[in-house]
């Protein structure tokens, strides 16, 4: 009888410690999550309609032109430091045969053109969204961001931050492999 009672008080005595331990684990997990990663509601939905002028040529490019092949839409700007960081990886992706559309976000034309001349241009086309209006439809809240769009023009994946980040890169590759007809 007394032994049972003692066991109970032992458990009770350690209860605060146990609860504290659980809280530490919970808060620890919370701290390691990145609050900047806001999941996009656009995944699985058709790319938002847009028609934007090209950066380097006359003419426009619209969301209809995205259809037909797997495409990466890479949101970048000359004022964006992380875009510079990821640029080498974007170039490698282009070299491996990936179709990449550049989405120049809230930038000045001469700055953007100079940036590409300096660092190299891996893009099939570059569209210029000078006032950032089209980017709102894409739910862009910072550069760089990269959208993966399948042959039907449906958004399959979104990378927030540089694709040069190993985790981002692996996630993107995995998402590409899931699309039937990919040439990876």
């Amino acid at each position: 009888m007394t032994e049972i009672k003692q066991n109970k008080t032992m458990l009770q005595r350690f209860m605060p410690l146990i609860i504290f331990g659980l809280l530490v684990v919970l808060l620890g997990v919370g701290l390691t999550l990145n609050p900047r990663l806001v999941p996009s509601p656009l995944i699985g939905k058709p790319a938002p309609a847009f028609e934007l002028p090209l950066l380097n040529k006359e003419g426009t490019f619209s969301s209809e032109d995205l259809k037909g092949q797997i495409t990466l839409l890479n949101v970048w700007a000359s004022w964006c430091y992380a875009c510079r960081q990821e640029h080498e990886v974007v170039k490698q992706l282009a070299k491996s045969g990936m179709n990449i559309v550049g989405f120049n976000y809230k930038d000045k034309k001469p700055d953007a053109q100079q940036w590409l001349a300096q660092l190299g241009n891996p893009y099939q086309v570059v569209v210029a969204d000078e006032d950032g209006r089209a980017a709102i439809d894409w739910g862009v809240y910072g550069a760089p961001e990269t959208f993966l769009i399948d042959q039907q023009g449906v958004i399959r994946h979104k990378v927030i931050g540089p694709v040069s980040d190993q985790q981002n890169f692996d996630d993107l590759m995995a998402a590409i492999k899931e699309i039937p007809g990919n040439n990876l």
Partner: protein
Amino acid sequence: MKTLFVIVAMFFYVGAWAAPMDTFEFESEAQEKTFRKLSDELRCLVCQNQSIADSNADLAKDLRTEIHGMLLAGKNEEQIKEFMVDRYGDYVLYEPPFNPMTWLLWFGPAMIFLIALFYVRRFILQQNSVKDSGELSAEEAERLKDLQLELNLPDQNNSSENGDMKGGSGS
């Protein structure tokens, strides 16, 4: 002294943290009210602890312009919120909507409160039962007996008889 005054005065310089001012014009007071309400309720995604109304970020400015344009085009509050959620997700709302992903968020505090209430009630009832009865419970009686045996004390129930005898022999 002068330096101190300047330092103190700096704390009262409200301009340092004033909300950004825009020069939007509205067709009616109600429209302006809706604008203020919406820009207060929507989160700026660049600087996440600020509302669109408070933030100086470029994107917040663009979104304020967007909201203003939609209001002038005759969109109502719900339509504008839906526009934002479609693009940025529930996260853009400071007050999360009620759905299976957020029910714990909504009911969690109430649940914890109820659990706490249950334990407080039990604790108080336990305290009362000890105080009120004035008698030993079966458990306590047994423990008392054990202790008495251990200490070699006389059984309290017959203390009037045995106490004298023991006391006598002890002296």
